[in-house]
């Protein structure tokens, strides 16, 4: 910074005013929007959720600080809040009975590999939290796909596990037995996260209502626009609805959009500023592609959930989308 000597006027180019926007404000907006989902997860998973979320956030913050200070040797950027967001989102994407040492590896992958190795906030091509999650998913498939049954408040590693709606859907497609789908909870229960199946899924994806509350908050505070979440959910709904009409082994589209990570991914992960396209046109293309890929992976891939992979794949296409979707220049359309 330049030293300002008393009495001297300050000069710079225009503009001299600045709005109220800041990186911190946006990041903490996301954190606040995640709060309902965090609280609900504490209600369903109790101790397990608390341990996973806390260790994930703490690990991400520590790694961000340590890497920027000792490896990159620059001013630590903890205060911008991006590490907290990454930590929270990573935690939300994990099962509530995951051992801490795996979470630490996940945080290292998310912050170290996914973010800081590219130069820190703003330079990462892939969503750091998803990089962490996907590396864990392929490295520790057993631990990452055992889902504790909701309602065990005081258990952590010893929690009982059960089948999730997604695994039921997958089984129905694999066996071609559409009767399996009758065990799925109805739409209302899916919204609340009250799952009679027993297994619930990751910490963050239990309750769609809580996530939608967060979405409304983000829209209200203008942290994100509607384009990405709405196009993803609509695409998933339309595509899975068509499949459902074509064959009964594919689940009801209402259940599909409320199950698994669709809501969490569409609202919080795909909308990550750094890795999503800049223009609304691009965001719509991006959203449609994510929705489509998710259903393809879910129904015909080897994993029951495809949201995180779909987002990562489209992250890779973001620069290309940016290149080909230019905003409409002033003067291109005439006359009202």
């Amino acid at each position, binding site marked *: 910074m330049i030293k*300002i000597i008393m009495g001297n*006027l300050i000069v710079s180019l225009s503009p001299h*005013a600045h709005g109220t926007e*800041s990186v911190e404000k946006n990041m903490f907006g996301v954190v606040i929007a995640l709060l309902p989902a965090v609280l609900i997860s504490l209600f369903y998973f109790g101790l397990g959720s608390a341990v996973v979320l806390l260790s994930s956030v703490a690990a991400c913050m520590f790694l961000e600080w340590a890497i920027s200070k000792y490896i990159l040797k620059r001013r630590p950027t903890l205060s911008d809040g991006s590490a907290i967001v990454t930590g929270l989102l990573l935690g939300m994407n994990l099962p509530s009975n995951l051992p801490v040492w795996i979470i630490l590896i996940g945080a290292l992958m998310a912050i170290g590999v996914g973010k800081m190795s590219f130069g820190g906030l703003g330079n990462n091509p892939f969503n750091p939290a998803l990089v962490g999650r996907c590396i864990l998913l392929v490295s520790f498939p057993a631990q990452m796909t055992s889902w504790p049954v909701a309602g065990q408040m005081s258990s952590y590693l010893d929690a009982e596990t059960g089948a999730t709606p997604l695994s039921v859907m997958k089984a129905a497609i694999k066996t071609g037995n559409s009767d399996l789908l009758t065990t799925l909870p109805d739409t209302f229960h899916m919204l609340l996260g009250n799952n009679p199946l027993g297994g619930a899924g990751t910490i963050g994806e239990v309750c769609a209502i809580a996530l939608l509350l967060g979405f409304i908050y983000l829209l209200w505070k203008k942290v994100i626009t509607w384009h990405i979440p709405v196009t993803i959910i609509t695409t998933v709904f339309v595509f899975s609805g068509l499949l459902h009409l074509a064959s009964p082994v594919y689940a009801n589209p209402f259940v599909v959009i409320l199950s698994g990570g669709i809501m969490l991914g569409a609202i919080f992960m795909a909308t990550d500023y750094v890795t999503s396209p800049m223009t609304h046109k691009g965001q719509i293309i991006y959203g449609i592609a994510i929705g489509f890929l998710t259903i393809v992976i879910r129904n015909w891939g080897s994993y029951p959930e495809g949201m995180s992979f779909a987002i990562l794949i489209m992250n890779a296409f973001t620069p290309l989308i940016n290149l080909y979707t230019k*905003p409409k220049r*002033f003067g291109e359309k005439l006359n009202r």
Partner: protein
Amino acid sequence: MKLFTFRIGGVHPQEHKLTADIPTKEAALPKAAVFPLGQHIGAPARPVVKRGDKVKVGTLIAEANGFVSAPIYSSVSGTVAKIDTSIDATGYRQPVIIINVEGDEWEEGIDRSSELENMEAHPELTAEEIIERIKIAGITGMGGASFPTFIKLCPPPTAKAECIIVNAVECEPYITADYRLMMEHAAEILVGLKLLMKAAKVEKGYIGIEENKPKAIELLTELTVEDSQITIVPLAMKYPQGGEKQLVDAVIGRQVPAPPAIPVNVGAIVQNVGTVFAVYQAVMKHKPLFERYTTVTGEHIKQPGNFLVRMGTPFKDLIAACGGLPDGDNKVLAGGPMMGKSVISLEVPVTKGTNSITVLTDADAHRKPIEPCIRCGKCVEVCPMGLEPYLLATLSAFKHYERLEQEDVVSCISCGSCQFTCPSHRPILDNILQGKGVVMSRIKARNQK
């Protein structure tokens, strides 16, 4: 009431219209008045006085030098002290005429009465005559850009003007000079608009006013109830509505194509409300342009106000009249906080384009620390020209000028919306302007070949 506005981008800066209800005062005469020769777009004027000459208020002191240029008149009476260089708003030294003030004697022929001259009283005025008088009076755009007004009234043969749009938007924060002018001289402004319509041979006139000035909208609507030619257009508040192209889009719903197209290519001639008033005075009162309405304002200024200022008055005189500079770090702007120029010294004089002197203090005066770009796309969302500011800034920082040109950097109107909205407080516009400068000079060089 249906509110119109432009269709792409825009931001909503805080208003800070501190001086909206303060009636205009006449500013005291300076001890010495400074007249920069290049205070308009185009060739600097050529001095026609020399050291020791006596001048009166309204005496021609420098004549237009070429087609795109404007004459300059003395705003004070006294003796020409010297023709020298002096610091301008940017800190570079420019040729100026300095006049020591003695008394306040006006040229004969200037009608100083406040009587309203109607169009009906002067049926003899032809379009050519009006344009000639505007040219002679040295009127330039008074919204800030200072483009000679008469040139706008003579469109190139390929374009045909259909309407005059009066820019009474005043979308910049703080400034209230145009608002006060409308409240105090509404009738004169309407006559001025009639004159411009006659000069441009058009049948339609619009006055675009933002909704944060309801009194002005009401007053002007009342005065034009029976006039079918003039329409008052209330506009939704959004910056940069006062930009020529944005205003045309907001008022008549036509978008001016990319440069080199100008508003008249879609049939509109845009004039600032201050310019319209100056046109009235020049044509009806034979008064050349030597004084203007200027707001002196700032959150920490003791008595902010609106002033009728003689051009050539140094900023320091006006600021002193408002209680002096506040303590602390100050940034003094010629213009508003969005597009104003920060001045390096308070010796800088008021010129034809100085619509406001804005003083920002302490936290407002400093820029916030720069953080990395998080690619949120907010700059793309707010760009009123449909550009991608993040990309332009990066390309210009890395000196990729060819790509920069392909990305339409020349369309940038430097409104600053991108930098205003950037959550990372990045110097987006600083970068773009520098790149744009290089691209413009490259295009110029290419065209000369």
